[in-house]
């Protein structure tokens, strides 16, 4: 048992070290790249502002401090956005595409170890607590001595709960280490990371506590230790290995995700409809950038075109992201029976590596792009359109570039994260209630020697 515990702690230490090292190098690169990118924006030679928009800006998502303990969805989401003229960009360069097929086996992290291997440790240590004693006749002797089943149950539960507390300790230490090393001005504050770590540790403890109660209940019910271990192992495999995949596929059938081609077509159609209406209303033309557009209205056309697209972009991207969140919510509720789903969702939400954090980043980056676009089209309307046929001889300089402030990534506050985690927390609480009831019935009320 000690060897198993040592292996568990060793794996946690290794994954925390790897996570911390990766997070540190990504953050250092991001800070430098963001600064240089903005400097390049400011240092542009005088040029037509629309060309400046084609140069655009890169924005980078800062890694959340607790991503070192739970990278969550990070490997499957990009962190770089190129803000350019005309259209909202999609986040590129997902780390998973820079890895071999082994990435699909999972990502080594402290959270993964606790969520997947933690219950197994509890199971190994607890399956025989009643069943082995029953097989050896010790349980009959203990009960014959007058020990009340409730006292016996409480004692055994306390022992296994202590193991659960021990297992989440690496998470607490790694989280506090992350708080100590909070980097960059845009990251969460020290205090917030500590609070998030406490929440993360607490929810992980509740998750393992529920497992401990189930293990005790099954052990109290089984006549033989081997029956207990087989039933528990089946439960563990179903709940931690099969359930995440199965639930993801079931949800996909219930709430299908559009294909990239389908999404692009739908977005194109929505944009076209919106553009047509705006061009007709504001510029008296049904053709975008048609031959009849005078250059004296080029800047105005750019503004009209951009602003008409914003609504379509919001609707289309909003619908897609809402779909992702709805799919996630169904799986969070499935956490009532497969607690890993609830625990994983809470963990990534509190770590700031969930989809909501990514959505906040992508939305704030798009707002920044729109700020750039509006700045440019207003400037063109004001200065270049007046030149008529000489529109494209207009050049803006640093005064215009400096009007666009540096990008500040959006932060998801603790309160917002807690709101996001609520379905997962409720599902986990419900699961704990069920586990407690099972334990109460099998290990306290109906315990037989």
């Amino acid at each position: 048992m000690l060897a198993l515990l040592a292996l568990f702690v060793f794996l946690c230490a290794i994954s925390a070290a790897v996570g911390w090292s990766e997070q540190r190098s990504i953050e250092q690169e991001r800070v430098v790249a963001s600064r240089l990118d903005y400097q390049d924006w400011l240092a542009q030679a005088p040029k037509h502002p629309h060309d400046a928009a084609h140069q655009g800006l890169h924005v980078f998502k800062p890694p959340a401090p607790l991503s070192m303990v739970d990278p969550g969805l990070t490997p499957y989401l990009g962190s770089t956005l190129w803000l350019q003229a005309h259209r909202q960009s999609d986040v590129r360069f997902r780390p998973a595409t820079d890895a071999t097929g082994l990435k699909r086996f999972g990502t080594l992290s402290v959270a993964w170890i606790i969520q997947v291997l933690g219950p197994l440790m509890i199971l190994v240590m607890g399956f025989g607590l009643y069943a082995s004693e029953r097989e050896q006749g010790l349980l009959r002797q203990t009960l014959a001595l007058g020990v009340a089943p409730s006292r016996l149950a409480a004692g055994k539960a306390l022992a296994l709960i202590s193991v659960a507390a021990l297992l989440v300790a690496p998470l607490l230490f790694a989280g506090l280490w992350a708080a100590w090393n909070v980097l960059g001005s845009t990251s969460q504050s020290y205090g917030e990371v500590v609070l998030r770590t406490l929440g993360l540790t607490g929810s992980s403890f509740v998750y393992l506590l529920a497992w401990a109660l189930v293990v005790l209940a099954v052990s109290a019910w089984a006549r033989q230790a081997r029956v207990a271990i087989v039933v528990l192992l089946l439960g563990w495999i179903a709940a931690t290995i099969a359930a995440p995949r199965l639930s993801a596929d079931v949800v996909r059938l219930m709430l299908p995700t559009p294909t990239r081609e389908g999404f692009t077509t739908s977005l194109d159609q929505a944009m076209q409809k919106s553009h047509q209406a705006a061009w007709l209303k504001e510029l008296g033309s049904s053709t975008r950038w048609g031959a009849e557009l005078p250059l004296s209205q080029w800047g105005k056309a750019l503004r009209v075109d951009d602003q008409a697209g914003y609504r379509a972009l919001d609707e289309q991207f909003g619908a897609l992201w809402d779909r992702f969140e709805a799919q996630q919510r169904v799986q969070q509720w499935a956490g009532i029976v497969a607690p890993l789903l609830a625990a994983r969702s809470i963990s990534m939400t509190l770590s700031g590596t969930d989809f909501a954090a990514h959505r906040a980043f992508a939305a704030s980056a798009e707002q920044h792009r729109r700020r750039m676009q509006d700045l440019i089209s207003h400037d063109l309307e004001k200065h270049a359109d007046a030149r008529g046929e000489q529109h494209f001889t207009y050049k803006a300089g640093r005064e215009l570039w400096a009007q666009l402030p540096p990008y500040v990534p959006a932060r998801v506050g603790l309160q917002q994260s807690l709101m996001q985690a609520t379905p997962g927390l409720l599902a986990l609480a419900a699961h704990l209630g069920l586990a407690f009831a099972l334990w109460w019935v099998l290990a306290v009320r109906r315990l037989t020697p």
Partner: protein
Amino acid sequence: MSLRAVARLEWSIIRADRTLYWMAALIACVLSIAAFSGASQIRAKTEVLQKLVAADADKTERLQLSWDQVMQGKLRPEPFANPTDPASVGSGLGARYNVLPYEPLAFMALGQADLYPNYYRVTTRNKTTFLYDGELENPWRLLSGAFDMAFVLTYLLPLLAIAWCFQLVSGEREQGTLRLVLASRLSGLQWLATKALVRWAALWLVVCLCVVALVMMQASGSIQWARMLWVLALCGAYLGFWCALCAALNVLRFTSAMNALLLLGAWVLLTLVAPVVLQVVVQWIEPMPSRTELAARTRLVTIEGLRRHQDQLQADYRYVADPGALLPKQGRFEVPARRLASFKIAQEVDREIEALLAQFEVQKARQQAWVERFSWISPAIGMHEALTALAGTDAARYARFQADVAQHHEQWKAFFEPRMTEGIAIQREDFERLPQFEGAAELARPDKVGQASGTRFIALVFLLVGLAWGFSQRNPPERWLKARA
């Protein structure tokens, strides 16, 4: 008792306790769910590909029609959708999808099919604008993985083998029948090996029947029998490893509960922990270049391009003053300077970042080589890699597809570059001469994949047989009657 008698006896025990029937029902049920899930996903993805191919099919005709109408003066060309303008045709109007069809066995192992798209729309824009788009998928689902047949065969099948064989000796001892068995003239090891062999054969037969039936029901297109036979052979070898492990452990005289625990520990280590640890090690040995640096380099090249082509970018849209500028004159078409500059900048970006992009591919190939070199540490890695390679959804095949698309992108640009720079209008017959995508992202050879993984599994089986023999020297069969304390 002869070996044949032991085999017969074991078979009658198996038939009598009905576990095999339950297990067969479980395997059939789980594999069916997995096959249905995989097939429905591949079917939806295939429909998308068919839609794209169908949309592209009549594109030549449509473009030729609109070209005719422009040339006959029946249609006024739009500045950014002009069929006579090489810039318009090359940058989107004539663009076609490069498609990688799904293989008939893809439903068995989705592999990387949910991460990478099987289609790219190639234009004259630089390749970072389209070649690194992922398939649209909920990241939560990507994190969870797919419930496909590869998952069942790689993760769950070993558990069934463990449940089936974990008490080969300990079960007999705990039921009190071991003494009788050991009294026969067969050696303990021969008896154990026969028992394990019978159980392995029964389980493999069930798996074979289920897989063949499901493939015949769900495979899209003609069944690739050679690949399927390799899948079955790999299942046999993979099961062989787990049954041999159970047999070797049983020699050590642990109780059934302890056997179950130890075997499950081995399963956790080999199936869950080893692959993720190997991934970390491989990334540490062969780190990928920085994507942040790629973004920075792309930006710098773009800035330089914007500066270099500043004069062309300043040019106005002549068509506003002269609508006739949108029509070709004696086979010539003057591409607007701004569009020509954008094309040149895209060319420069492609050229300048080529070396950096190549580094990503090189590092990925090196990582893959390390994975192949060390996949013997976990049969699960070998099984998963082999199944995805046989299904045509492995990372290496998607890398080959991307390389094919990149090559086609070069051909596409080479077709349009002289037309754009020398001001040659698109002719009617040019639509039929547009470069066609001929990349097929060659599938991994089934015998090569099967032999590589199968050989490893069989070598591991021999290793375990050797270990069992070694264990039996310290734990001779006469001591098997007493469980280890």
